[in-house]
């Protein structure tokens, strides 16, 4: 291992990690919003929207992100829709993540028994309040493990962003291998970068799950 080479190129990796992190976080936040929308629409059985959400979830869960990105980045410009690399990455990640988040929220909402709603209505809460103060907090604590797993999954998925010409971690590693043939060093730094990025999230998720296990009511 060439330690001088490694120290020289650390800034490149740091820069790339920042990009991965920024795009990942943006994508995850949008995914959470889409997921919440799709889960609520299905929970309340809103007529048409519910079908749209169901079709979206099936389409998004059964296709790979790489193919979605190819379609967005190389396909759409042919009919005049030109989207920048970063927007493609964020749209792709949100399209993929939305359905995973929706499933996580849905399983949480479904786990709350109907007597909770009935009891809340009986003490005079409005439907909005029932969701806001009774159903959602309980559902959220059930959904947290799945949501955390999705966050890690989505950050891992960002590793394909190099195909839409974004200088992410994979791109830098591949570049260094191509330019200097320093394969070992480049891959070593790649692994370390992903560990630095994902290990804290993984540990935080484990801690959060342990804390929330007490939040379940009545079991």
């Amino acid at each position, binding site marked *: 291992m060439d330690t001088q080479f490694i120290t020289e190129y650390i800034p490149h990796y740091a820069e790339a990690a920042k990009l991965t992190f920024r795009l990942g976080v943006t994508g995850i936040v949008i995914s959470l919003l889409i997921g919440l929308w799709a889960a609520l629409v299905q929970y309340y059985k809103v007529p048409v929207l519910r079908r749209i959400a169901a079709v979206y979830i099936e389409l998004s869960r*059964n296709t*790979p992100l790489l193919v979605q990105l*190819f379609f967005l980045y190389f396909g759409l*410009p042919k009919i005049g829709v030109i989207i920048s690399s970063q927007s493609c990455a964020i749209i792709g990640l949100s399209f993929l993540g939305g359905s995973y988040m929706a499933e996580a929220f849905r399983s949480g909402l479904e786990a709350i028994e109907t007597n909770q709603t009935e009891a809340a209505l009986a003490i005079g809460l409005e439907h909005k309040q029932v969701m806001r103060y009774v159903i959602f907090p309980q559902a959220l604590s059930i959904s947290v493990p799945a949501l955390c797993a999705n966050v890690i999954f989505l950050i*891992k998925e960002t590793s394909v962003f*190099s195909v839409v010409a974004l200088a992410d971690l*994979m791109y830098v590693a591949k570049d260094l291998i191509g330019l200097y043939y320093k*394969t070992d060093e480049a891959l070593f730094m790649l*692994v370390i970068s992903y560990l630095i990025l994902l290990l804290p999230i993984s540990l935080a998720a484990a801690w959060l799950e342990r804390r929330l296990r007490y939040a379940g009511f009545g079991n």
Partner: protein
Amino acid sequence: MQDLGIRVLFMGDNFWRLLGGLWVTVKISLTAVLLSVALGILLGIVMTLKYKIVRYTAKVYLEFIRIMPQLVLLFIVYFGLAKSLGINLSGQTAAVIVFTLWGTAEMGDLVRGALISIPRHQYESGDALGLSRMQVYRYIILPQALRRLIPLAINLTTRMIKTTTLIVLIGVVEVLKVAQQIIEANRYTVPDSAIWLYGTIFFLYFIVCWPVSRLAVRLEKRWKN
């Protein structure tokens, strides 16, 4: 109206070439799934044993594999091994190795989960009946664990098929690569073919994965109790 790029799909044997490319992906994922199920069951059983060293080794392996993006693992096996150890694997072999390593970790965790979800008294009753350890697993634990496991293993298959798309990035000629070749070959005659081809691939993946994930959902519901 201008002639549509979709005709590229049906020129010559383009469509069959696309399906052939898809088959490469599916073949690699099925091979990896079969290997992972076998190795994963072993890993899962090992992880429920009492030996601390074995358990911690398995845990470290599992965490490392699950935290690394699969593309990084592909790069390590495909580029890393060639450079540092002089082992030159074909893209397809590298892919099978990586997806087996990953699948074993995922499967091992599922098996462990299924095994510890079986109540202790099932093991104890088996012992009380005078069955050996092997017989307890063979006749009592595994048949019950399998019902919880099979839907999850089917889910893993669809994830595997979707993730295997990454092999295009280590130079394996699969469906996306075939599409690129077709697009390049028709660059001047049909300039807008890209949207049709990538759109088609999008739906091809959907057609392959959707029935499989529906099956998993149905089995899960049927075997719930």
